[in-house]
């Protein structure tokens, strides 16, 4: 009996919250808000906030063309693999006091899983056999390499800060990091973590492939690169993955640096005199709303604003920027964290 209940519970986690349905709805909404804000910053009216939903459903109704030169299975499966990886990451990221899956080393798992969406685009693009995809492929690889180094440094700095506070050296469990913050306040307060948060803010647009760092999908020069041959539903899935990636990166940021809000929600519920199951449910609802609002703010700050004020960088400029400026900031935070600041 309990096995069946567990199975139903995990199925709900995977399909509804924090899995597929939650990712779909909030990722698309984030993307719509991003487009609206960019439009307002350029003094335009902008598309409706629900525009990404319209785009997705329209693409589902279009003909799917598989090029003669493409390898069919890889071409059609790659987008699904990328989306699945993103949904799995979302399962590992705690929503304040609630986490669907937790492990000893979630951060390492997330680090590896974050590569899969990018690799799936590379795989699908390579399978399409288009020369534009070939150019996009090499650029996407360079973007991954550029972003990965500072991202690892930032995660190490966070792991070291929480680990030395817990006395375990390095703490790679995201659930523990959030639980520690719920007790001792958000990590964003200390100098080393401010540097880490700044570096992470710079990483988010690169990781999601949004504006100044979208050389791999430059629509004006290389016909959207890796996606050049995609049409119909597979293209829709790629657009969805891009939207979900925005949610994943921003909610990872919230979990790493604003985990203290979970403690705040607990105290709020206690002051209302709520305990037990009801408190858990209401706390989770408040948590979801707060998480989504924070994700919106982060999206506006580090994706929309940057999109509106910058022009696309060349690929070697992206590489240089990440391996000098962002890695520098991340290294500062790591050194500070090692000295316990």
């Amino acid at each position: 009996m309990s096995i069946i209940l567990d199975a139903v519970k995990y199925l709900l986690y995977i399909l509804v919250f924090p899995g597929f349905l939650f990712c779909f709805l909030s990722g698309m909404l984030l993307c719509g808000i991003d487009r609206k804000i960019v439009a307002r910053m350029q003094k335009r009216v902008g598309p409706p906030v629900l525009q990404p939903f319209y785009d997705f459903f329209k693409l589902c109704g279009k003909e799917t063309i598989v090029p003669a030169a493409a390898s069919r299975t890889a071409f059609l499966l790659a987008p699904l693999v990328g989306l699945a990886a993103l949904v799995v990451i979302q399962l590992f990221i705690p929503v304040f006091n609630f986490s669907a899956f937790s492990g000893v080393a979630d951060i390492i798992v997330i680090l590896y899983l974050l590569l899969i969406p990018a690799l799936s685009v590379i795989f699908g693009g390579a399978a399409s056999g288009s020369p534009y995809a070939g150019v996009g492929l090499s650029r996407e690889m360079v973007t991954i390499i550029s972003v990965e180094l500072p991202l690892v440094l930032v995660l190490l700095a966070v792991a070291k800060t929480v680990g030395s506070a817990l006395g375990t050296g390095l703490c790679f469990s995201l659930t523990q990091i959030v639980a520690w913050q719920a007790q001792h306040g958000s990590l964003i307060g200390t100098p080393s973590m401010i540097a880490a948060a700044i570096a992470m803010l710079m990483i988010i647009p690169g990781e999601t492939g949004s504006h100044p760092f979208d050389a791999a999908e430059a629509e004006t020069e290389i016909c959207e690169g890796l996606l050049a041959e995609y049409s119909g539903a597979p293209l829709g899935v790629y657009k969805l993955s891009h939207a979900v990636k925005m949610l994943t990166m921003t909610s990872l940021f919230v979990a790493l640096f604003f985990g203290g809000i979970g403690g705040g929600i607990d105290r709020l519920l206690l002051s209302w005199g709520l305990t037990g199951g009801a408190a858990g449910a209401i706390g989770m609802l408040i948590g979801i709303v707060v998480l989504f609002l924070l994700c919106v703010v982060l999206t506006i700050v580090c994706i929309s604003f940057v999109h509106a004020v910058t022009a696309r960088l060349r690929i070697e400029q992206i590489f240089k920027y990440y391996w000098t400026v962002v890695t520098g900031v991340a290294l500062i935070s790591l050194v500070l964290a090692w000295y316990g600041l």
Partner: protein
Amino acid sequence: MFKKLIEESTGKSPWLFHINAGSCNGCDIELVSVLTPRYDAERLGFKLAGSPRHADIVVVTGPVTAQSLPRVLRAISQVPEPRCIVTMGSCPQSGNVFRGSYSIAGPLSKYVHVDVDVAGCAPKPEAVIDGLALATQILQQKRREMK
């Protein structure tokens, strides 16, 4: 229900692909101006797609020169169904001042079915938006008739 959702969405998210078939660049600039803050066609869901495979509406400018004709037809055939073809300016519609020239293969309607013609040299942005909105309705109609 799902079919209705797709139908609704088709009318709200038309992506454009722009083909220059020997145009003087006048219409091309006017098409770009449709997407600028002043006219902002993105509020209706229009977006300039980079690849013909992503497009719903193909906008052809220029008198369709003999050199460009095979490329234009090839690009149009790569657009997935349902699709709409809009000619922009007088050139692809009639040949304009280039009519009768040895190097002109147009008008475009000799080779493919054209859904909307936007006349003018170059057409005003308002006229372009009007034509594109009409094309969107035709697109929705075509989606309804599919399957």
